[in-house]
C-alpha cells in the first residue's frame, strides 16, 4: 500500500494504491494526518485500492467521521462503497467508541471494593440460609413430609468416600513419613538418637489431632466440594433446578441435603483411615529408617495416642464435611448466567471451604485447649 499526497488547488489529494488491509493502515493514517495538518481539505482517492478488510473499512469510517467533513472519500470501487454502506453510518458510532475502553483504575478499585463487600455479605447470607434449610430438612422436615433421601446419600458416599481412598491414603502415608523425619531431626538436637522413639508420640498425636482431619478435609474440598458446585451450578444453567422446583421438588431437600449428609458421614470415615495410614507412615520412618524396634514403637504409639485425640479429630472431620458441603452447594446455587460462572463459583467454593475449614480448626483447637480435652 502506498499513499501519495499531491496538491490540487486549495485541496490535498491522498491517492491510495494497493491493498487496504490490517497491516497497511498505519501508512495511510500517517499520510492522512500530514495532509490534514496542512489545514487544507483532503480528498482520499480510493481508485487504486485493491483488496480491503474490516479493519481497513473501519479505519476509513473512523477517519471520515473524525474529520467532520474535511476528509472526503472519492472514487471508491462499487465493492468498497457497498461494504462501507453496509456498516453503520458514522453518525451511529457516537459515544459507542469509548464504551469499549476500560474504566480508570481508581474507579475500578472503588467499584471492586463495594462489590466485594456486597458479594461477601450476600454469600454469608446464602450460606446461613442454606445451613438453616439443611438443619430443617434433617430435623423437623421428615415429620412434615420431606423425607430424607438416604438412598441418594448412599450413592454419594461411594463417590465422595470410597473413591477418595487411594488419594487420601497416599497423602496420609507421605505425611506420616515426612513427620517421622521432621520429628526425628528435632529430637536428635535434644538428646541424640536415643530420643527417636518419641517420634511415635509426635507423629501419632499430630496425625490424629490435626494433620489427618485437616489434610483430608482439604483434599475433599478440592475433590468433592468443587464437584458439588460444578454439578449444581451446571444444573442451574441448564434449568434443571427450575425443573425440580416445577415438579414440586425442593432442590435443597432433593439434591443438597443428600450431598451434605454423605460428606458428614464420609469425611470422618476417611479421616479414620487417614489416621491409620498416616501413623503407619510414621512407623515406616521410625522402624525401618531410624531403626526403632517395632514393639517399642508400637507400645510408644499406644501410650501416646489417647482415644480423645482420635475422637476430637473425627468430630472435627464431621464439621468440616458439613462446611465443605454447605460451601459447595451454596456456591452452586449462586451460579447465574453460563459456563464461565460455573468455573468462577467452583474456584471460589474450593478457596472458601479450605479457608473455612482452617478457621474452624483453629476455633476447635482453642476450645479443646481451653476445655482441656
Amino acid at each position: 500500500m502506498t499513499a501519495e499526497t499531491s496538491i490540487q488547488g486549495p485541496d490535498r489529494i491522498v491517492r491510495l494504491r494497493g491493498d487496504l488491509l490490517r497491516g497497511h493502515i498505519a501508512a495511510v493514517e500517517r499520510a492522512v494526518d500530514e495532509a490534514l495538518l496542512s489545514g487544507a481539505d483532503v480528498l482520499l482517492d480510493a481508485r487504486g485500492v485493491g483488496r480491503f478488510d474490516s479493519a481497513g473499512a473501519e479505519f476509513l469510517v473512523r477517519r471520515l467521521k473524525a474529520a467532520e467533513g474535511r476528509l472526503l472519500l472519492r472514487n471508491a470501487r462499487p465493492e468498497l462503497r457497498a461494504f462501507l454502506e453496509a456498516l453503520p453510518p458514522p453518525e451511529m458510532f457516537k459515544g459507542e467508541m469509548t464504551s469499549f475502553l476500560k474504566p480508570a483504575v481508581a474507579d475500578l478499585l472503588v467499584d471492586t471494593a463495594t462489590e466485594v463487600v456486597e458479594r461477601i455479605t450476600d454469600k454469608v447470607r446464602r450460606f446461613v440460609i442454606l445451613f438453616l434449610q439443611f438443619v430443617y430438612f434433617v430435623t423437623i422436615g421428615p415429620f412434615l413430609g420431606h423425607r430424607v433421601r438416604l438412598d441418594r446419600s448412599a450413592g454419594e458416599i461411594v463417590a465422595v468416600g470410597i473413591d477418595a481412598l487411594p488419594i487420601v491414603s497416599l497423602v496420609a502415608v507421605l505425611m506420616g513419613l515426612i513427620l517421622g523425619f521432621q520429628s526425628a531431626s528435632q529430637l536428635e538436637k535434644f538428646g541424640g538418637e536415643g530420643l527417636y522413639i518419641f517420634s511415635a508420640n509426635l507423629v501419632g498425636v499430630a496425625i490424629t489431632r490435626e494433620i489427618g482431619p485437616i489434610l483430608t478435609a482439604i483434599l475433599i474440598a478440592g475433590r468433592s466440594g468443587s464437584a458439588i458446585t460444578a454439578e449444581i451450578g451446571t444444573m442451574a444453567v441448564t434449568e434443571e433446578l427450575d425443573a425440580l422446583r416445577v415438579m414440586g421438588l425442593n432442590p435443597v431437600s432433593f439434591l443438597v441435603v443428600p450431598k451434605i449428609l454423605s460428606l458428614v458421614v464420609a469425611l470422618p470415615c476417611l479421616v479414620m483411615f487417614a489416621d491409620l495410614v498416616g501413623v503407619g507412615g510414621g512407623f515406616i520412618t521410625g522402624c525401618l529408617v531410624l531403626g526403632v524396634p517395632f514393639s517399642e514403637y508400637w507400645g510408644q504409639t499406644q501410650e501416646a495416642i489417647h482415644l480423645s485425640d482420635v475422637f476430637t479429630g473425627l468430630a472435627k472431620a464431621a464439621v468440616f464435611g458439613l462446611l465443605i458441603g454447605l460451601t459447595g452447594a451454596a456456591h452452586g446455587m449462586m451460579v447465574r448466567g453460563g459456563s464461565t460462572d460455573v468455573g468462577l463459583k467452583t474456584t471460589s467454593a474450593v478457596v472458601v471451604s479450605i479457608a473455612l475449614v482452617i478457621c474452624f480448626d483453629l476455633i476447635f483447637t482453642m476450645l479443646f485447649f481451653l476445655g482441656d480435652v
Partner: protein
Amino acid sequence: MSAEVAEPVVVKDLCVSYGERAILRGVDFKVKKGEIYVLMGPSGCGKTTVLRCLVGLLRPSSGTVTVLGRELSSLDEDQLDSFRPQVGMLFQFGALLNSMSVGDNVALPLRERTGLDPATVHAIVKLKLSMVGLEGTHRRMPAELSGGMRKRAGLARAMVLDPQVYFFDEPTSGLDPVTAAEFDQLVLTLKRALGMTAVVVTHDLDSAFRIADRMGVLINGRLVAEGTPEEIRSVKEGRIHSFVNRTPRAGQDDRDVWARFFVYA
C-alpha cells in the same frame, strides 16, 4: 385435584422489574379451559418471564397470577410445592436431570409425589414415553438424546402426573423445520386426546399459527395484540404487522448519512 375452573390461567396487570429495568409493564390475559394460548414476541420481550411467573419460579413485582383458581403470590414455598404437580412445564431444552436415565426422569414426579408401586410407575412411564414417540428409550441417558428427543422426553415428564395446565417454553426452538412440525402435531394430538390447556411461549411464527387457538403478541413488556390467529394476521398496526410478517424494523437503514462523506466522482 382442585375443582374445575373455566379459566385456568388468569393474569392481571402483571409487572416484573429487575432493579431499574422493567421487563413486564402490565400484562393481562386469560386462558380458557381446553385452549392453547400462544404468547409470542421478539427475543427479549419478556415472554419467558411471564412463563416463570405462571409456575411461581418468579414472584411478580406487582399484579396477580391466578392458576387453577389459586393466586400464586399468596402461596408460600411449601404450598407452591404441593400446588405444582397440577401444572406441567416443558423447558426450552427439556431440562432433564443429566444424572438419571430418561425413564428415571419421567418416573421422578411419580416416585416423589405419589405412592404408586414400582410396577405401576414403570407402566405409566412406558405409556407416556410412547405417547411422545420415545418407546424404548427409557434406559438411555439424556446426553445420548438429540435436542428434539430431549424436548419430547421433557414433555413426557411434564405429562406424567396428568396436570391440568401445561406451560411450554420455546417448544420448537433449535429444532429443524420437520421436527418442529412433528412436535406441533404432537401438541395438537395431545390436545385432542387430553383436552389440554396450554400456554406456549415462542418466537417461531409457523409453529405459533399452527397450534394456537388464541394468541397474544408481547412487545417490550406489553401485550399489544390478542386474538385468534386470523385476527392477529390481519392486524395492520406497525410493530405487530412487521413482527407477524417478518419485515425488518424501520429506521435501521439510513444511507443518506453516508452521502456526506462520499464524493461520487
